[in-house]
Structure formats: C-alpha cells, structure tokens
C-alpha cells in the first residue's frame, strides 16, 4: 500500500504540474509583485533608506524572497479549494488510492511552483545588480531555509484551503503573511522603529530568517539568527501539519 501511496502522490502531482504548465499565470503573478517591490524599493524609495554599507538590493532581497513565498502559497490554498469544490476530491477519495496522496500532491506542487517563482525573482535581482560572494554551500543553505519556510507556509495554506468557504477566503489568509516582512528587518533596520513595533519586528520569525539569509549572502557570521529561524520554521511546520491533518481526516472520513 505504501509504495502505491508514493506512486499515487506522483501521479496526482503530475496532474497539478500539468495544470500549472497549461496556465503558468499563477507563477507569473506570484513573481510579479515581488519584482514590482524590487523595482519600487531599489529605484524609488531605496535611496532614502539608511542601511549602513552595501547596496540596497543586496539588503532587501532576502525579504523579497520571503514575500514571494507568502504570495505563492495563496495559490496553494486556491488550488486545493478548487479541487474540493469541483468534486474531483470526492472522486479521488472514493478510489483505492493512498489516503493522503491528494494532500501531498498539493504540498509538492506548492514547493515546485514556489521554487520556480523564486528562481525568476533571483534572476531579476541579478539583472538589477544583486551580487553575493556566497559559496555553493551558502546558496544551498539559503535554498534550504527558503524550502523550509515554503513548507511551513504551505501547510498553513492547506489549512486555509481545507477550511475555506469561498475562493476569496481561501487566499485571504496570505495577506498578513505578505505584509509581515514589512514589519521586520527586511526593508529597514529595526532600530529605526518605535519601541513596541521594534519589539514585534525583532521577535517575529521573518526577521531571524531575513538576518540569517542576509548574513549568508554578505559572507558575515550568521550567529544565533539561524537557529531562531530554523526553530520558527520547524515549529510552524509541525503545528500547521498537525492542524491540517486533523482537518483533513475529519473531512475525508
């Protein structure tokens, strides 16, 4: 049965990836907003922001990458919601296939779609003058953190997709996630913020992630930010996974 579960997940993932290939607008839309923010901040606002040394695009790219993921997972919830609405979910659930194959196919598809969007955004950033001295190992570290963050947010989006009543509801949960990097060290140093805001910015997950990724790109020592970031990602991932599975079981039985 378990070998079938893997095979079924692969078949269902193939279905979702074919859908994305046929209408790649979701990936393009996911990449457009972060790219627009890159242009806005680098060419319009960035000149007035004091970050202390280095180019502004180098400073802001980590935050932009997290925004890319946050807007990408809105489509994960949307795709899942569509399947639940269209009746194809019930068709699959009444077939002798792995019970959670359907859910995993959405998770893997989310990962693939977000990686593609991230590659596009990094490509544009390189064209706009982003430079890093990070080694291959450093890049792998960044990729690993982004994948982990994607997975954590993907399971949140699964909860949203499973419990939404309307299409709008299915993707609305991502707005606060997209906004979160703005109240972090992503665009301006946190020490420029007033007390309570600064406290929030320094203690929310995005700041540690941004700091860790930025340190790797800049070739600086990463320090404790890495462990705080990993702790946040794994914590959110585990909680969201458990929550999603509980809702899924209730729905699927």
């Amino acid at each position, binding site marked *: 049965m378990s070998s*079938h579960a893997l*095979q*079924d997940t692969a*078949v*269902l993932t193939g*279905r979702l990836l*074919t*859908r994305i290939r*046929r*209408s790649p607008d979701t990936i393009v839309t996911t990449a457009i907003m972060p790219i627009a923010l890159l242009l806005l901040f680098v060419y319009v606002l960035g000149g007035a922001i004091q970050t202390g040394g280095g180019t502004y695009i180098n400073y802001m790219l980590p935050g932009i990458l997290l925004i890319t993921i946050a807007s990408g997972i809105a489509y994960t919830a949307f795709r899942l919601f569509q399947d639940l609405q*269209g*009746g*194809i979910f*019930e*068709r*699959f*659930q*009444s*077939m*002798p*296939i792995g019970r959670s194959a359907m859910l995993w196919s959405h998770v893997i598809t989310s990962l693939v779609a977000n990686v593609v969007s991230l590659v596009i955004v990094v490509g544009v950033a390189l064209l706009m003058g982003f430079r890093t001295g990070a080694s291959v190992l450093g890049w792998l570290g960044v990729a690993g953190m982004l994948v982990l963050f994607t997975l954590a947010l993907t399971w949140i989006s699964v909860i949203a997709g499973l419990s939404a009543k309307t299409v709008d509801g299915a993707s609305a949960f991502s707005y606060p996630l997209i906004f979160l990097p703005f109240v972090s060290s992503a665009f301006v140093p946190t020490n420029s913020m007033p007390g309570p805001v600064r406290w929030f910015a320094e203690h929310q997950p995005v700041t540690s992630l941004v700091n860790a990724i930025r340190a790797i790109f800049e070739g600086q020592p990463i320090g404790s930010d890495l462990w705080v970031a990993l702790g946040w990602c794994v914590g959110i991932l585990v909680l969201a996974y458990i929550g999603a599975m509980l809702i899924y079981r209730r729905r*699927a*039985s």
Partner: protein
Amino acid sequence: MTTSPKGDAAISVRGITKSFKDQQVLRGVDLDVARGSIFALLGSNGAGKTTLIKILSTLLRADAGTATVHGRDVVSDAAGVRQAISLTGQFAAVDEVLTGRENLVLVAKLRHLVGPGGIADELLARFDLTEAGKRAAGTYSGGMRRRLDIAMSLIGHPPVVFLDEPTTGLDPEARLEVWAAIKELAAGGTTVLLTTQYLDEAEQLAQRIAILHQGHIIANGTLAELKALLPPVEVTYVEKQPSLEEIFLAMTARGEAPTQPNPAASGTGSEDQEASA
C-alpha cells in the same frame, strides 16, 4: 422487502441513520440492490440521497446501522469497498484543464492498471469522445462532460457504480446520451445505484426503484409493484399529443431537415454525434 434478493445483493443497507448537527437526514434506511441490476433511488432535493451515496462510497460515516458493498463493510473494510466501487458525484468530477484523454489516463494510473493510454483510447471510442479527447475537458458540453465522467468511472471495471443525479442540469439530448451509457454499463454486468429526482429517469432505467422521503424508504419495488400500490387503473381515452420533449428532439435531430417531422425521434439518441460542433 418481500422480493428482495437474499445473499446475492451487491449492496445491502440496514438501519442506516445520519444526522448533521440537529438535522436528521437519514432515519433508518434499509435496502438491497441485486447484482448486475440498475437500482434507482428516487427523491426530491434534500431527501438524503446524496448522503446515502456518500456513506456507501466511504466518504461519510453513518451514525448507526450497517452497509456492505460487494460483500465488504463500508466502515471496517473501507479500502476493500473502494476497490469495488466507483462514484460519479453530482457535479461532473473531471479535471477541466486536462484533456478528456488525460483525465482517463489519470484515473487508469490511479487504479494502477497496465497500459493506461490504451484503456483511455478504448473508452474514448466507446463514448464517442475520440475527437474531443484531445481537447481540454473544460470546453465540453454538459452531456460530453457527463459521458467523460461516466467513462472515468468504468476504468478498472468496478463491479458497483454509484451515479448521483447523473442527468441533473443536462438538456434532453444529453440526458438520452447518458441514459444510453448507463444501460450499456448494466448490460456489461455492473451493478448501478443511481439517484434521481426525475420520475421518468427511474422508469426508463431501473429494474427496482426505491423512494426516499424525509430520511425513510417509503416504497421499494419494481415499477409494476409500485404501480400496484395505487388503486387499479381506470381506462380513459385521451388524444395522444406529442410531448414538448418529443417535439424538441424531433426538431433538433442532427442531419434531419427541420421540415421532416420524425415520429420515431424519441429513440435512444445514442447515434448522436457532435459532428460539426
């Protein structure tokens, strides 16, 4: 329950109840469906037909009672039931972005069959969808979608097929197409449990009919048995007028000149092709 088949039932339901919050949808349902027959579950909207289908196809769990499908218990052997059934839900459950052929290949792969491409081509031919098979299912007419949906249900030859309101929302021609497909299914030995709110559909297709009303089966038998429940027929003479359906079908019959009234137009309609559509 007097003429119900014993031991040879493909579907057997005993005392099934189901409530959603404080609303009691099924209040103790009993029925048997003989192997290889078409059984129609008739009821108005909200009678609980879909709920019963969902329980039998392992999508929902009953509050009380037992049900077996193909000799397997829907709760303790849900995986076994899923091996034996296929469900065509109320809304055509096809992937609109994939082509018709890709939809069929997808299901064949999920049933772990050898040669999914060949299976798909064979079913496309059988359901007059070979041409349309290359197009995205989202471009299909309602009748074509339903036919694709039913074709998807046949993959792997499940011995029991559930069809939940297979013709709701279809135009008369498409209904005839779907009816032909269902008859063909049963002719191949498949047990079909279908729900419908159309009386003529049950009359046309089913060997046995049960009426589900407010969570109870209030009548269950062959058409003749159900008719016998009412007082004997009085013979009256009424001039036979063509029904609007007959007129519609005659006027829209493909390849016919519209001026030729065709008295035999209420046939099966299975030869209908989407020739130039």
